[in-house]
């Protein structure tokens, strides 16, 4: 039961798309929203992110920032926040499906298509359908392809936000609109792209011990298949589902803490044979997401701080990183960030072994050392020594 939906460009504060469904909130909510953001930053500082829900005079404003655009909706009802945020997210991926990419230019070029979409997706504030298949038959406008300049195409909406910078991997189905129903000739090839994206979250104590680690994974499917083909995906059989992770036993191999499937996935045989049967609808879906907690980390990091005996205002920091995965695998673009104390005056560093394909640089603004290793082989160890000079404080009483 949303009242209005709009897309804003934060840079200039332009309203790119504005759709009023119920006319029960003021017309100038988009300005109101921008004002609210501005005052929020004024009060809390620029490094604070405003919460995604505002209440302005009884008008509830919910928004999300997707690829530099604000997707905002307003309502006067006590709605479900989850449903609303999912809806905003889904509208964004619909635009991506229909227009190829999501960017300010693309939204400007395809405004009439987006209005067409919005008209079908939501009626009088009630979500109707967001299925690309279904919408294809009622959308008549054709997409205008936008240039893709400096846009990181991450089809992984679910992982996007926590800052995982995935870059563009070689096999990514980029900037091609899913839907080209009225233009049969050009995209006839049957293609499907499947990505498995895993994010490992690990917490270490200051002595290098693992406090907690888990894998958040998702299987993404972007389908250009023309007919209703069926896809079968079978995971290796040593995976099991166990809700209680504290009894995890090696005999069962990897234990899922939790997983869930997209609606188009027939998972009835998953418990038995780890098999999923997917009838991918056109467009991008997240077929499965899962969470595994465990101790098997691909990397170990051991920091060490040494006092330099001859000069009291210097310390040495040694970072060792060990890779615990098979030797035939290579990790690319690894970055280790080392924050330094605020009394840091000077920094220099030396690699203890191996200079190949790596660099370390100190950013004095944020007081952090960024150590980047382009290729890191399995079963090896790399280390970095950072020499830090400190400013001394003298207190007088």
């Amino acid at each position, binding site marked *: 039961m949303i009242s209005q939906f709009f897309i804003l460009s934060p840079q200039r504060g332009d309203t790119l798309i504005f759709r009023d469904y119920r006319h029960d909130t003021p017309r100038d909510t988009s300005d109101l929203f921008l004002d609210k953001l501005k005052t929020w930053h004024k009060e809390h500082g620029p490094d604070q992110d405003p919460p995604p829900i505002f209440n302005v005079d009884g008008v509830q404003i919910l928004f999300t920032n997707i690829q530099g655009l604000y997707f905002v909706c307003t309502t006067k009802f006590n709605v479900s926040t989850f449903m609303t945020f999912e809806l905003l997210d889904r509208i964004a991926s619909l635009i991506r499906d229909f227009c190829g990419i999501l960017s300010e230019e693309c939204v400007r070029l395809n405004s009439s298509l987006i209005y067409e979409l919005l*008209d079908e997706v939501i009626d009088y504030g009630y979500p109707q359908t967001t299925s690309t298949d279904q919408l294809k038959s009622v959308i008549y406008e054709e997409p205008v392809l936008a240039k893709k300049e400096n846009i990181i195409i991450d089809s992984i909406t*679910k992982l996007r936000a926590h800052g995982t910078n995935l870059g563009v991997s070689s096999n990514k189905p980029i900037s091609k609109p899913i839907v080209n129903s009225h233009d049969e000739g050009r995209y006839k090839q049957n293609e499907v792209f499947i990505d498995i994206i895993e994010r490992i979250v690990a917490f270490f104590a200051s002595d290098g011990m693992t406090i907690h680690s888990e894998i958040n994974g998702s299987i993404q499917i972007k389908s250009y298949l023309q007919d209703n083909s069926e896809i079968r995906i079978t995971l290796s059989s040593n995976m099991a589902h166990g809700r209680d992770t504290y009894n995890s036993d090696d005999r069962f191999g990897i234990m899922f803490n*939790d997983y869930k499937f997209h609606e188009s996935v027939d998972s009835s045989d998953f418990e038995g044979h780890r098999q999923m049967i997917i009838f991918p609808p056109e467009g991008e879906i997240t077929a499965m997401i899962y969470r595994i907690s465990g101790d098997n980390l691909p990397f170990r990091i051991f920091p060490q701080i040494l006092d330099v005996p001859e000069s009291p205002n210097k310390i040495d920091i040694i970072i060792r990183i060990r890779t615990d995965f098979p030797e035939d695998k290579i990790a690319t673009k690894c970055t280790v960030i080392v924050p330094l104390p605020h009394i840091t005056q000077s920094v220099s560093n030396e690699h203890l072994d191996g200079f190949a394909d790596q660099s370390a640089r100190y950013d004095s603004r944020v007081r952090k050392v960024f150590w980047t290793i382009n290729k890191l082989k399995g079963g090896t160890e790399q280390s970095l020594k950072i020499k830090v000079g400190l400013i001394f404080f003298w207190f007088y009483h």
Partner: protein
Amino acid sequence: MATEKVSFLESQQSREIIELSQLLQETSDNVTTNPSGLSLSAKRPVVKKILEAMAAGIDVSSLFGNVVKAASTKDLVLKKLAYIYISTQAEQNADLVILAINTFQKDLHDENLFVRGLALRTLCSMRLSEYVPYMLESLNSALKDSSAYVRKTALISCIKVFHLSPKHVLDTTLIDQLYKTLGDRDSEVVANCVVALNEILHSQGGMTVNKKIAMYLLQRIRDFNEWHQCLILNTLVRYQPNEDNEIYDIMNLLDDRLKHHNSGVQLATMKLFIYLTINIPEIHDDLYKRVREPLLTLLSLGNPEIAYSCLEHLILLVKSTPQLFQSDHKQFYRRIKEPSFVTLKKLELLQDVATDINAKEIVDEISCYITSGNGAIANKSIQTISNIAIRIGSILTYSLEIFIKLLEIGKDNIVSGIITILEDLLNESPDKFDGLLSVLPSIWASVDLTSSAGPAFLNLLMTVGNTLPETPYILESLIEDIENYPDASFRLQLLNSSVALFLLRPAECKDMLAKLFKYTTKSTEHLEVRERSLFLYQLLRFDIETAKKIFDSRHETTKISNKNLWNTTKDRPLYEFNTLSITHGKPSEQFIIDTGPTFYWQNKQEIDSQLSPTLEFDTVMSYQPELELFTDHMLTNLIIQVNEHNKDTFTLSIVNPIDADANVFKSCWSKFINSDQLEISLPETSMLVKSLTLDDIEDVFKDSNIFTMASGNTGDVLKFFLYAKEENSHVLILCELKINIHLASANINIKIGYLPEDEIISDAQETELFKHSQDFSHYLITYSERIYTCSKCHTHLAEHKELISKAFQGRLGRAYLFNAVENVCLGQKEDRTLITGVHTVKDISCIGCNTVIGWKYVHAFQEDQKYKENKYIVEKAMILKENNW
């Protein structure tokens, strides 16, 4: 300059509009067909431009006629664009809409089902009540359309028409037809039908959900798409099965919905489960365990907004079942590159998740955030550790150690933050602060003493540092430097701390204290500081023993109370699970202002009716009296409990203008004793409260000899500073009144005292003061005990508090509307035509003298007059105020 700019902009905009309109007229209607067989009109880009201008907020209503013409085209995209324009601009061009009706009629019978749906949707989106008959006619045929797409559009359109003209929808057989449509074979039609019934029958609590309907919807739940599942599950919470078996059946049926890929469906299912089991507490634990993993997955894998909402719900669950996430605390640690609003919520959650077992780990983890460089997170982390330490005693010493270590690092903002909370922590453990002693002297250079940390630091110095050799020197240098600390609260604390130290170590502190007194008693000093300074000076001068006693007793601990917004209705939050209430942390009434969905629309109609010549008598007259009533109500509500006191001595006199000086008021306000503070909710005077102006309210107070010092308007809140003087005792009563218009509540803060010229408060006078405060209260109470009597025989007829409005017209002139009257006989029932239409009424007569004094409304035929039913009209001429109050 500014106006020139604006007009330039406007002229530029209007030129653009003219260009667009020319373009639209000139462009041919020719429709070309592209290779794939789709129609393409040349007008398409022009209309697109118009829509862009509309989105940018430019007034494009003058193009209406041209766009309507463009709408009758074979180019479907152009048609859609034109329809979007028509539906948004229809109101400004009500007289031109008739042009569009023709196009609508044609499209409603188009062979393309999407065109039929589109036309219907647009037609009903126009908020023009004169076209309701057209809409109803097309709705009726559309509901029987062969296409599911048209049917589902028709259902949503029913809601639109309903808000336009409730009567038309409720009076027809539409509702029955909707209930029949529930059996439609298309799931989207069924879902929209549920939605439509819910909204149309909102005032009756939504659609009827009996066993048959509930079971039917549950069986088909998998047919619905994800959004419709959310809406239907939300409707099903109204169904309460009779048997436990049925509950378990439903839960088994919906179990896999907890793993749905849309978090909206997951949460809706959880909410339904919570509702179903609300009376079966023994399975709550199982239920919570069942929802635990899905919520944790949402937290790790959802986007930040979902994670944020998820944390809100976790916080709620932890509050009711603290041990539920006891072993999951590591899931709530801050992640890399996480937006700060998520981290802040996580800290809030960790605070509640902490138990004896995991508290140390949690405190360790959070303490790392303090030095992370993000100010808000650092402050919240400090606060969180402090709250955990206060709640879990075993971690207290450890937390103090961490704080002391951080103090030694000496980063400015962190030190200030820690100093501020240390006071609370030390109150909890007065004997565990030895470690602080050594760091205190070294950190004072890095504390930002001009912030709130300043007074806290001084207080610490007094409680902890009184044995340190450095303390007097720190204080001395601060006193030397006092010019740089203009803040009153800092100076007050400086006075306190210096005196406290003086009492312990007089020799070292004598000189600097003298200096401090000298400075703070200057006439330019802040009044509060000056008063405190004088008081302390006198105290030390005359009774040093008492002073010692006072300062010794300051160490008594004050417990921190945990405020819970929900505490009045304990299980209430669970009922509002999966809504915005959880985010705002309060029941929906407190932030949803008007649940009537067409608020702006209704408002507009009301204004229209006020402007029209058929002005209703009631509406005009009610304005002023309603206002009076509103303030009456506020006054009568002021005091809740008052003992029996001597009533007759309390009268409010006119304050002479000399007393009414803003400066005097200001000083009195800070000096006077707090006597009462309360919050009341105001009567539902509906729209009228919203239209009150400051002057109106001030006038009413003035009639009761209560005067306004200052008033202002900050958004929804009207704020007043009021004052009144009691005639006999010269007690001055000050009152701060805040009226929140939207929440219809008032916040009142009363202070009492004497004017500065007759001050010096003795004990006797103080008790006197309190007595006066109560008298004032009582004065307000007696206000409420006012009774109306029969003008002939003085029989008691009605209480003042039952009065609803003074704005009615009786046979003998003005009449009052009462909620209840006493001591009357009811006459025969009869239909009577009154100013506001036909009503069934019964005359009422006084039982003492049998005089007819008014009538009772038994039935009102018009919807908008229904509020009068069972209320009483009493002629003003027939009643008196007892004892002439």
